[in-house]
C-alpha cells in the first residue's frame, strides 16, 4: 500500500525527518511512536499530501505521491493533531463540504454523512455550530471528515490529543471499528495508547526510525526481563483474602505458583490478593515472553484465568530505552563541540 524510500524533510537547514524507508501493507494498522519532535507529524503530513518531502520517493497504492499528489490525496483521509474545522459551519454542512471537496456526488454525500454521523456518534450535534462543540466532539467531527469519503488510507496524528480519559477510551473503540475497513496510520507519544490498537509500531527519534515491529517483537528484542501479570479467580475465598497478608500462602495460589515454576525460563514469582477481582494476581518474571505457556499451564491445572498481560510499565521502559539508546548513539557520532 505504501512504499517510502529515503524520505527526508528539511525546514530551512534543519533536518526534521530522515532519510527513512518503510513499507506498509494494505489493511495494516501501524503506529508511529516517538517523543515530541521525533518526526511523527512531519512523516504523516508528507503521507497525507500536506507537505512535500525534500528528498526520497513515496509510492501510495501504485501512485507517485510527488509527481501525482492529487491521485494520492484521493486515497487519503487525514486527521491532524488540530482538527481542520470551520467554526462557523454546522456539523452537517461541514461534513457535506468535506465530502464534496473529496469528489463525492451531492446525493452520495447526504447518505454518507448520515452513515458517518451514526458510526461516530455525532447525530446528537449534527445541527450544532462547530464553535459550540466540546473538545471531544470536535475531535469526532475531525475524524468524521477524515472518513467521509471512505478512503483506503486513514492517517491520524495524535487522535487522542486533548481528550479526557473517557474520551480516549471512546476514541480507541472507534479506531477498533475503523481498522476493519481502512489501512490506518496513527501517531502518538503514548505507548500504551497506541500499542493496543496497532499491529505494528515504527519508533521514531530525531527524525529516524530507530525500531520497528509488533509490541511483543519490540519487547522481545529490548527487554532483558519480561514481567507478566496473570490474575486467577479464587472462588469462595473473599473473607480469607481480607485477612491474609501474603497471598502465596493461600492453597490455590500456592498450587498455581508451583505449576508456574515448572515453566522453562521462569525466574521469580510473587503474588498479591486482589479482593476487588475476587482472586489473586501473580507476577511472573522470565527471560522470554512466556505468556502462552503460562496461560496453558494454568488452564490445564484447572485455574480460572481472568487476566494475563505484559506489564505496561515494562513496555514504557522499552520505549524510553530505545529513545535513550538512539540519543547516546547520536552523541557518540556527533559529540558536542
Amino acid at each position, binding site marked *: 500500500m505504501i512504499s517510502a524510500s529515503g524520505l527526508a524533510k528539511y525546514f530551512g537547514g534543519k533536518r526534521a525527518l530522515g532519510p527513512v524507508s518503510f513499507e506498509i501493507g494494505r489493511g495494516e494498522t501501524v503506529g508511529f511512536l516517538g517523543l515530541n519532535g521525533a518526526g511523527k507529524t512531519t512523516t504523516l503530513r508528507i503521507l497525507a499530501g500536506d507537505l512535500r518531502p525534500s528528498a526520497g520517493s513515496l509510492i501510495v497504492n501504485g501512485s507517485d505521491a510527488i509527481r501525482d499528489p492529487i491521485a494520492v490525496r484521493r486515497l487519503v483521509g487525514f486527521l491532524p493533531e488540530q482538527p481542520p474545522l*470551520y467554526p462557523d459551519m454546522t456539523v452537517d454542512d461541514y461534513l457535506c*463540504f468535506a465530502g464534496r471537496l*473529496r469528489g463525492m456526488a451531492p446525493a452520495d454525500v447526504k447518505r454518507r454523512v448520515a452513515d458517518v454521523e451514526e458510526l461516530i456518534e455525532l447525530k446528537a450535534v449534527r445541527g450544532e455550530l462547530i464553535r459550540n462543540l466540546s473538545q471531544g466532539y470536535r475531535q469526532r467531527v475531525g475524524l468524521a471528515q477524515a472518513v467521509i469519503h471512505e478512503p483506503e488510507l486513514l492517517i491520524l496524528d495524535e487522535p487522542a490529543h486533548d481528550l479526557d480519559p473517557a474520551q480516549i477510551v471512546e476514541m480507541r473503540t472507534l479506531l477498533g471499528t475503523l481498522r476493519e475497513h481502512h489501512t490506518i496510520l496513527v501517531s502518538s507519544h503514548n505507548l500504551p495508547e497506541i500499542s493496543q490498537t496497532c499491529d505494528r509500531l515504527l519508533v521514531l527519534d530525531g527524525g529516524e526510525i530507530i525500531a520497528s515491529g509488533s509490541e511483543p517483537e519490540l519487547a522481545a528484542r529490548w527487554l532483558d526481563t519480561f514481567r507478566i501479570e496473570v490474575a486467577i479467580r479464587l472462588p469462595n475465598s473473599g473473607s480469607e483474602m481480607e485477612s491474609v497478608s501474603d497471598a502465596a500462602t493461600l492453597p490455590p495460589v500456592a498450587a498455581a505458583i508451583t505449576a508456574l515454576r515448572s515453566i522453562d525460563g521462569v525466574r521469580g514469582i510473587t503474588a498479591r490478593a486482589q479482593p476487588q477481582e475476587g482472586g489473586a494476581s501473580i507476577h511472573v518474571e522470565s527471560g522470554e515472553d512466556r505468556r502462552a505457556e503460562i496461560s496453558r499451564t494454568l488452564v490445564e491445572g484447572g485455574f480460572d484465568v481472568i487476566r494475563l498481560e505484559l506489564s505496561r510499565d515494562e513496555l514504557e521502559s522499552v520505549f524510553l530505552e530505545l529513545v535513550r539508546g538512539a540519543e547516546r548513539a547520536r552523541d557518540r557520532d556527533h559529540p558536542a563541540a
Partner: protein
Amino acid sequence: MRAIAIILQRELNAYFKAPLGWVVAAVVLLLSGLLFYAEALGPAAGARLSADVLARFFFSVSGLVAIAAIVLSVRLLTEERQSGSIVLLHTSPVRDRDIVLGKFFAAFVFLTGITLATLYLPLLLLVNGKVSWGHIAVGYLGLLLLGGAVLAIGLFASVLTRNSLAAAVTGGALTGGMFLLWPLASVMGPPLAGVFAGLAIHGRHFSGFQVGVLHLRDVVYYLSVTYFFLLLATRTLDARRWQ
C-alpha cells in the same frame, strides 16, 4: 471547476454568516450615500452637470470599493492558516489554483453585491438629470475591475502571513503604493512618469471608466493585475508545502 464552485459556495456563506461582511456592506453603503449627497446636493456642490456628478461619484466610490476589497480579502487565507482548516483543503484532491480561485470569486461576488447596492444613487441621476445608461454601466464595470484587482492583491497578502492585521497592512501597503504611482508620475520626468502612470492602479486607468469611456487597454490592465496577483498567491500557497 467543480472544486472552485464548492469552495466559492462555502466562502460566500461565511461572508453572510459573519458580521464582517455585513459591517463592510453597511459602511460602504452609508459612506457612498454621504459622498453622493455631498457631490450632488450638499452646500458645496454648486451647479454641476449630472454627468460630472456621476464621474465624481465613481471616483469617490472607487476608493471605498478598494478599501472594502482589502478588508474582505485579507481574511481569506490567514484565518484558514490560523485555525488549521487549510489542512482540509491541502489534503483534498484539489489544486492550489482552485483554492485561490474559489476564494477570489467568493469575495468578488460579495463585493459585486455591495457595489451594485449603490446603484440606486446613479439611478437618481438618471431619473432627475441627464446621464446615459452607458456611463453608468461603464462606471460600474470600472469599479468591479478595480475591486477585482485589489481583491487579488489582498488575497496574495493573506497567503503571506497567518496574522490578519499583518495581511491587511501588507495588502493595504501594496494597494496604497499602486495608488500613489499616479501622483508620483505627475512629479517625475520621462521615462519614469510614463512607467508609473502605466502601472498606477487608479488615475490613468480609471479616469476613462469615471466619465463613461471604455478603453480596452484599461480593461486589459485591471485583468492583468488580477491575474498576476492570483498567480503569485497560487505559487506562494504551493511553496508553503515545501516549508
